[in-house]
């Protein structure tokens, strides 16, 4: 076979799985197992159905899922083949990219020289421009990519943007109508009912009792946004560009993964400790209880910000003193991110542990556990079969409640200088940079705005969803 470098296909890649990627896959498997398990048990399905019947919760859930999808696509890292060695093996690029990068390639590659405003066709600052005849004038230079497809960008841009918005809306409307119809046809074939009947039921909200109008509106908005970004973001910088000319829209989309990793992996890491220690303290009592209580009282009596600061500083020294352990900057940033998750986990497990201890103390006196003990069932089995399933609702409530707090904490910690690596794209780093940009004249507001919108959307939907989960699972609120 005679393969030359320009015939290397896009799929000839070398997977490059980072530490956080592995944990995200693990989390995904865990969620999959949980969903499979919950689907088969009515007592687990009922609260979820109750959650999804609430319109606000349903629409938050869909938005969260789309965030999660972006985060997932951004967690599949690989290195692309660049050319062929003489012995026939492929040579791979040093730069590791994610599947998401590949999907939004124009966003990633269209970098300008420096700042430019959203939808601008010119740079933010004046420069000396050399004309073809050698004369030098001082003006705003044209952008390399933003509006580059237009002959006269200054004149045609607004018209072009309008046209593109109309096209995107038209496409999105078509897509959502098609999707709705397909779903209705599938439902009517499954339930052997007429198509019109299914559509009417969906309109009235009687189909499975789910708020289908909300589902369609939310999905429709998301599809509209996707089409809008496909039309607009590929030829303009919809959120402008940052100091080194990177597209801010791309940066804020990439930040989603960082936020999600902090929000989810932190809990994933701390859960085993919190559950094990909490239940052990409540179940065994005596010196085990004393010891575990002592550990979490001590840990929680250090103000968490200061404990995080101290631990992160120490990890930074450790990493800086062992530069040989990491081959690439990306790996180093990734290990730092994981360390941050660990540290946040250590400082945040105490609350859950305390709650679980209290609940186990109550449960161990319950009749069915007394009965199990009388039958001689081993402690391990009692804990795993009887106590654990009965405290899982507390775990679930706390996990979803903690998520939004952790996403917010990332931003604050990155500002303080003990957050994620400065080379890592995150909302915290974007806000940190925006602090100086706000002092410029004219003000560079778009980085802050982009981070604000996306962070608010993620945290707000997470909070709304968490409230619904708490209402559905907290037995004290069930009446």
């Amino acid at each position, binding site marked *: 076979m005679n393969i030359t470098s320009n015939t290397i296909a896009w799929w000839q890649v070398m997977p490059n799985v980072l530490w956080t990627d592995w944990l995200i896959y693990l989390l995904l498997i865990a969620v999959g197992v949980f969903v499979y398990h919950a689907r088969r048990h009515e007592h687990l399905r009922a609260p979820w159905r109750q959650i999804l019947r609430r319109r606000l919760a349903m629409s938050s859930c869909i938005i969260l899922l789309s965030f999660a999808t972006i985060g997932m696509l951004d967690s599949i890292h690989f290195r692309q083949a660049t050319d062929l060695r003489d012995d026939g093996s492929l040579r791979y690029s040093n730069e590791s990219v994610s599947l998401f990068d590949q999907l939004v390639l124009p966003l990633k590659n269209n970098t300008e020289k420096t700042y430019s405003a959203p939808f601008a066709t010119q740079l933010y600052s004046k420069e000396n421009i050399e004309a073809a005849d050698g004369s030098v004038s001082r003006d705003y230079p044209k952008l390399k990519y933003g509006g580059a497809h237009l002959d006269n960008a200054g004149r045609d841009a607004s018209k072009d943007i309008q046209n593109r918005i109309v096209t995107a809306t038209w496409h999105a409307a078509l897509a959502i109508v098609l999707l709705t119809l397909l779903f209705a046809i599938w439902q009517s074939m499954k339930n052997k009912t007429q198509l019109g009947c299914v559509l009417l039921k969906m309109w009235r909200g009687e189909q499975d009792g789910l708020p289908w109008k909300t589902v369609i509106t939310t999905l429709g908005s998301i599809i509209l946004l996707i089409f809008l970004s496909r039309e607009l973001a590929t030829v303009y910088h919809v959120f402008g560009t940052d100091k080194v000319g990177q597209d801010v829209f791309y940066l804020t989309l990439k930040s989603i993964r960082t936020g999600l990793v902090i929000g989810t992996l932190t809990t994933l890491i701390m859960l085993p400790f919190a559950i094990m220690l909490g239940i052990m303290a409540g179940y065994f009592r005596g010196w085990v209880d004393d010891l575990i209580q002592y550990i979490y009282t001590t840990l929680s009596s250090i*103000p968490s910000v200061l404990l995080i600061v101290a631990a992160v500083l120490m990890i930074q020294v450790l990493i800086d003193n062992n530069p040989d352990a990491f081959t690439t900057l990306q790996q180093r940033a990734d290990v730092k991110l994981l360390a941050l998750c660990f540290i946040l986990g250590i400082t945040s497990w105490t609350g859950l542990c305390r709650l679980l201890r209290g609940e186990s103390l109550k449960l161990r006196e319950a009749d069915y556990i007394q009965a199990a003990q009388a039958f001689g069932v081993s402690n391990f089995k009692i804990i795993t079969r009887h106590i654990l399933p009965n405290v899982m609702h507390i775990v679930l409530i706390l996990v979803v409640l903690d998520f939004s707090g952790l996403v917010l904490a990332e931003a604050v910690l990155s*500002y303080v200088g003990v957050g994620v690596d400065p080379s890592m794209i995150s909302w915290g780093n974007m806000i940190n940079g925006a602090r100086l940009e706000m002092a410029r004249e004219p003000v560079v507001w778009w980085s802050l705005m982009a981070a604000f919108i996306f*962070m608010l959307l993620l945290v707000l939907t997470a909070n709304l969803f968490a409230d619904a989960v708490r209402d559905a699972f907290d037995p004290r609120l069930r009446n």
Partner: protein
Amino acid sequence: MLAYITRRLLYAIPILIGVNLITFALFFIVNTPDNIARMQLGVKNVTPEAIQKWKANHGYDKPLLYNENKNGSEALTETIFYTKSVRLFVFDFGVSDEGRDISHDISQRMWPSLAIAIPSLIVGLLVNISLSMLLAFFRGSYIDVTGVITGVVLISISALFYIIGGQYIMSKLWHLVPISGYTEGVAGFKFLILPVAIAVIGGVGSGTRWYRTIFLEEINKDYVRTARAKGLSELRVLFRHILKNAMIPILTGVVVIIPLLFMGSLLTESFFGIPGLGSYTIDAIHAQDFAIVRAMVFLGSVLYIIGLILTDISYTLVDPRIRLS
């Protein structure tokens, strides 16, 4: 009462020892003093002599736990553990890596922190209680629903946005107050308005949400029904009966953070250039001054434990049903 307080203080000792051991492990076992010296001097091109000199200057040139070269009690006291960790118990924070006396810095810098923190706490408490009473009074109505949703939105905004946005709008666009700075006395009042306002707005979402549930819990209790049955107006019930009882969880919840007010707020102080303990900590983090960070961790824990003790005492004071056992 005295016996109770003494017992609570004695309980605090093992916890403080634990905190001390954790900080010691974090700062001296995760990284050896050699590593820290290398970090301070720049990782590359450091001679062993330079490291030795840095360690000797900052008192890190001793063994960690046991000094074999000394006799008697000095074998234990001439160690890093004794000089850097045990001395924290008598609030001897030593000198910072830059050579400044930490205890002196702390005693000077806690006043600006308090100047921000105390007004923020009081104004915030008043605003949160009024708003949550309003929501509880109109419970179930559109006012309540709007209020609750606004609260969730306010919680979802990072504190950084409140500060950056507030500074931009109030100082840069409208020129109402200075953007940052601090002076002592009455002249400093204008510097305090914006940080306090932002602290209040930043906390109003979570505060109102929490207090609202407290009020709603009280509203459903029997004594409230009795009061209504006696023919008292809803407003009178709210202010005379519910407010008094709801203040118990609210005030005891506040007591725990009162000692921590000394520490100030990291974000507010660094954004507004207030020379308090919060910005002191931030500066130490940026300069990687571990001596200061270590001192602040210990001080923070002490203050938090004091807060917990005060909470327990205040419970017994405001609610006579809780006995001191």
